[in-house]
């Protein structure tokens, strides 16, 4: 049913992601990990057409943009890496426009999914999404989108630490956080409150569940914030006591005066 679950049917749970634009390094590991997991899980097949040719095309559920921000404070421009995937909106028009009922929003946790067995591939849902979160799979003839790794997060065959979306597990910078944004006491909700996380295009009225944490203000160098770096380098590791080592330790001490 593509009518959204009524407020009284919803559990209050809003599973989603919090993406820290301050720490994201733009390595694309989340996108690659997502593709790898989803080409064998719920979204399988997620193949690329002409993958090694001159014009490869295929559905990916996560895309990482890089933007340059010209700040007014005279500082050098900032680079902000910006992962973009389904925001599992509370009022998703991609679901209500679906003519077949293949797109739906789960009442129990708010995850927005596509049933690949009933999707007719009309692509109207992708037109309704302002975030470009849905990508048509040319090899499968149906629409694909982020499932919030619904086949991982409840999967009891996995170790507890693996029961989170593949992108979150893969992020080497800790820039992706997963949790219940409907619970104000959850770690992700507290993080959003502390860092003033924001919605993408709030004027769309779709009420995205995923939140973005803005880049922190940059240190200007004029203010003293935190311990100063040591004036000279300390010797790294224990000395082996050789004559050369002793010479360099003496030289370091002399030059540090």
């Amino acid at each position, binding site marked *: *049913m*593509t*009518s959204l679950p009524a407020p009284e049917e919803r559990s209050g749970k809003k599973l989603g992601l919090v993406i820290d634009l301050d720490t994201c390094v*733009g390595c694309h590991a989340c*996108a690659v990990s997502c593709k790898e997991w989803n080409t064998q899980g719920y979204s399988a097949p997620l193949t690329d057409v002409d993958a090694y040719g001159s*014009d490869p*095309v295929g*559905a*990916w559920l996560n*895309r*990482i*943009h*890089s*933007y*340059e*921000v*010209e700040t*007014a404070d005279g500082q050098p421009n*900032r*680079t*902000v890496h*910006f992962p*973009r995937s389904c925001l599992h909106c509370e009022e998703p*028009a991609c*679901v*209500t*426009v*679906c*003519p*077949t*009922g*293949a797109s739906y929003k789960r009442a129990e946790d708010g995850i927005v999914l596509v049933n690949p067995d*009933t*999707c*007719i*591939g*009309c*692509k*109207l849902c*992708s*037109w*309704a*999404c*302002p*975030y*470009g979160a849905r*990508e*048509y799979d*040319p090899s*499968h003839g*149906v*629409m694909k989108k982020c499932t919030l790794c619904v086949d991982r997060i409840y999967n009891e065959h996995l170790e507890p630490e693996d029961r989170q979306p593949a992108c979150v597990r893969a992020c080497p910078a800790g820039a992706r956080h997963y949790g219940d944004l409907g619970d104000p006491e959850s770690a992700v909700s507290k993080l959003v409150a502390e860092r003033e996380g*924001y*919605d*993408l*295009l709030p004027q*769309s009225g779709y009420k995205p569940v995923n939140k*973005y944490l*803005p*880049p922190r203000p940059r240190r200007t160098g004029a203010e003293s914030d935190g311990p100063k770096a040591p004036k000279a380098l300390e010797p790294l590791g224990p000395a082996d006591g050789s004559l050369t080592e002793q010479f360099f330790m003496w030289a370091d001490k002399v030059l540090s005066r």
Partner: protein
Amino acid sequence: MHPAYSVIFFTTASGAGYGLLALLGLGAVFGVAFPQGPLFCIVAFGLSLGLITLGLLSSTFHLGHPERAWRAFSQWRSSWLSREGVAAFATYVPAGLFGVLWLAGFEGGVAWKILGFLSAALAVITVWCTGMIYGCLTTIRQWNHALVAPIYVVLSGATGLVLFALLMQGFGSGRAWHVGFAMAGLVAAALIKSVYWRSIDQAPRDLTIGDATGLGRLGKVRQLEAPHTQTNFVQREMGYKVARKHARKLRLMCLLLGFGACFVACGLTFLLPAWTATAWLIVAACAAAFAVVVERWLFFAEAEHVVNLFYGTPQA
């Protein structure tokens, strides 16, 4: 937005078909003197239901799984596309019975008139639903406009009126008011489209890449690096720019070579010998088809999806 050729063919062909069907139905209600004999009925219904059916079939060509198209009848509570499917299918019932009664010689009866009215009403509802599929999308400024659904209905009516005048003339029952109504329909079509174009041109393009990313709070945003080296589905589907470059010329072509030429061809039936009228109305029908195809192409090509902001478009 990328113009899907099957959808352009569908909306223009079935639009004309529904327009003609609605006029046959309204003609029955208001007691228009239709040509005698079954041949007119066969040709008129063949043309209108043929255009409708061809259009509906072609609309399934752009689906990834056409064999599942029947599922689209289920979500009429929330989806305009589903409503369109239901209305399109429902129209066949009174339209089929309307045609059968006509062929069986019940022409002029109350049942025949009621079925004519129902056919006309459902035809208009179907075309309205088609317009609302686009009109309800808040992601596309040029589509989420109050005139979009009315334009679909007016253009369907205008093309239907031209076909109606052609059929009546072809069967020797042509009257001046048939062509006059067609000309009025063409003026209405050109007028509503011009008002729409003016309106979308004047609307502020107030969403920026900074608004979309939320990074506008830090300063001026531009795309440094795209997420992928090749264009993806989102860019191919939503980022189409080919016809937008020529939008001005194509709009003029639609108005002058399309609706304008059609209007002139209709007008010539009054000035030139009566035996040439059918030929001029065939020219008019071709010009009307050209106009709506160009209009529909532009409707897609001029539509700018908000997602393009993420891909570096400064404003939408």
